[in-house]
């Protein structure tokens, strides 16, 4: 189990500083929330942690490994998995195939073994398929396994994306606004899932505008505004922090109300 350390990360896009000297650590198995107004730099931070973007300054490390500078697939190899704010499932594939992509990093059969359909590859394929079905079963989506993702409703796609990330058996899961666009019931299901994920000892980095969800599941919360850290602490402290109330919690935001 590893600790995630974000160390003095700054990200500039031309003249815009999307992240300014952000540092924090996430302990193994912890649920860590990141909140802040639109454009605060939350997704940018996720992209940097998952290797899709590179910081202008600073670095990210996971346990002994420096993640900064590694391509995303090498970051995933370290046990990080993520979902996307705008739901990036693979629409041309079935639900099961999407989840099986999550298993990709655990597969060892080489390209030649695949092309020649060697016995070893067939056994591995069957095992991955069974694993994917088990994960779908746990998320109560077994009946959708053969459905093409393009035929699913938005909330279901979010759950497929979550299943895909869980299939990777991460030790750190990054969820970027997993509740946005979900119905109240779906959001409740999601909260239950996140708690179950914690029980398995998986650390979660959660970006979310739904305050009741964040306050409910997170142990620690980081508040960003214009790329700067303005608060950091337990939910109770964040709720009562004057600056946080001023820039984020106080003003009624349409997408914060769910």
């Amino acid at each position, binding site marked *: 189990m590893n600790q995630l350390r974000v160390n003095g990360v700054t990200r500039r896009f031309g003249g815009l500083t999307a992240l300014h000297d952000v540092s924090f650590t996430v302990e193994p198995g912890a649920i860590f929330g990141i909140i802040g107004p639109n454009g605060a730099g939350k997704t940018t931070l996720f992209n940097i942690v*998952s*290797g*899709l973007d590179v910081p202008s300054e600073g670095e990210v490390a996971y346990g002994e490994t420096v993640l900064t500078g590694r*391509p*995303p*697939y090498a970051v*995933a*190899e370290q046990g990080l*998995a*993520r979902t*996307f704010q*705008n*739901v*990036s*499932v*693979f*629409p*041309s*594939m079935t639900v099961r*195939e999407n989840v*099986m*992509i*999550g*298993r*990709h*990093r655990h*597969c060892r*059969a080489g*390209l030649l073994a*695949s*092309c*020649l*359909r060697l016995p070893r*590859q067939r056994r*591995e*394929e069957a095992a*991955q398929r069974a694993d994917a079905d088990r994960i779908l079963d746990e998320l109560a989506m077994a009946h959708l396994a053969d*459905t093409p993702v393009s*035929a*699913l*409703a*938005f909330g279901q*796609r979010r759950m497929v994306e979550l299943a*895909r*990330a869980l299939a*990777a058996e991460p030790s750190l899961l990054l969820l970027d606004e997993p509740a946005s*666009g979900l119905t109240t019931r779906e959001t409740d299901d999601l909260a239950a899932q996140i708690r179950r994920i914690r029980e398995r000892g998986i650390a979660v980095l959660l970006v979310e505008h739904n305050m009741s969800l964040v306050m409910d599941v997170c142990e620690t919360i980081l508040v960003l505004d214009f790329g700067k850290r303005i608060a950091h602490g337990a939910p109770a402290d964040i709720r009562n922090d004057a600056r946080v109330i001023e820039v984020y919690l106080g003003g009624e935001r349409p997408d914060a109300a769910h």
Partner: protein
Amino acid sequence: MRAAVRHALPMIAMTAGVVALQLVISAADRQFYMTQLVMALYYTIVVMGLCLVMGYAGQVSLGHGGFFALGGYTSAILTTRNLAAHLRPETLQTLERIGLLWSRTDLYGAPLATLAPWPAFVAALLLTGAVALILGFPALRLKGHYLAMATLGFGLIVYRMLLGSAFTGYADGITGVPPWRLAPGVTVSGAMDNRIVNYYIACGFLLFVLWFLRNLTGSRHGRALRSIHDSETAAKAMGVNTPRLKLQAFVISAVLAAAAGSFLTHFNGGIGPSEADAMKSVRYLTLVAAGGMANIWGAMGVSLALTFLSLRGVFGVYDHAVFGGLLIVIVSVAPNGPGRWVADLLRRRRPTVRSSGAAAEPAT
């Protein structure tokens, strides 16, 4: 067990179809179809390989004519270039004993020693694989259609070099490529009395490629390729080494084109520069699109039919226009392939039949 049967069934059906077609052609006394059929089979192997790159890896290659020509010309050059004068007799004998060299006398009775077809074939594959690696390595690391540009440039260079070089016989290309004896009684050549054997050789090769590509596309590597096509970002984040996988698919595809080129060169007894013409590459690309992009079966069927008709001269002077027009129609009307287009049309007719709960589209 059930899965094994499901996997084997299409291959068994295809094999039966191959035999049936041969029997029908023989019974109808249409053996003269065989020549164009064999050629269409080899060109279709190029199209199926390209399908892997375009349909699955989501990359455009305009160099597959070039790869085909590279394979064909390598085989042609190595099996016709006389080494008798360059090597000592003992060396010749040793090389011949281990099967690398092939000594005979030419038309005028002079000693002729060339590389045997097998090692020439292997050299053709290795050379083409290396060229594809060099072309693809930088191009596939970048986002966008750099591979299309790189391969277009490659195709043009190959074409011009073949046309302009004495080594490759200028516009005449290379003739006098010897038959290739694969096994006793199984020889790749265009001899009239060898047509049925060559039909089965070409079909066997095609079936192997079909089996090979279906294995690949049905495996985790095939899934990973499709995931790149759908969302490269998400694929990467899930641990798919996207640059490497795209490069592997591209190299496999180029090597398949070279293998087809090598076989067809032995079948035709020669090869010309028109094989590397950009129009050829565009034609392969059109056939992949017309087959439904990520559809090996579609690519195979459409390519076999249209290439055969084209080689039979059915399209006459409109030959290029037919393929160009097809490309325009596909791209503008049915970019996901004719199959999907028809399916969409049918669905639009009866919109209420959508399965429950599936109708809601993303809110954003």
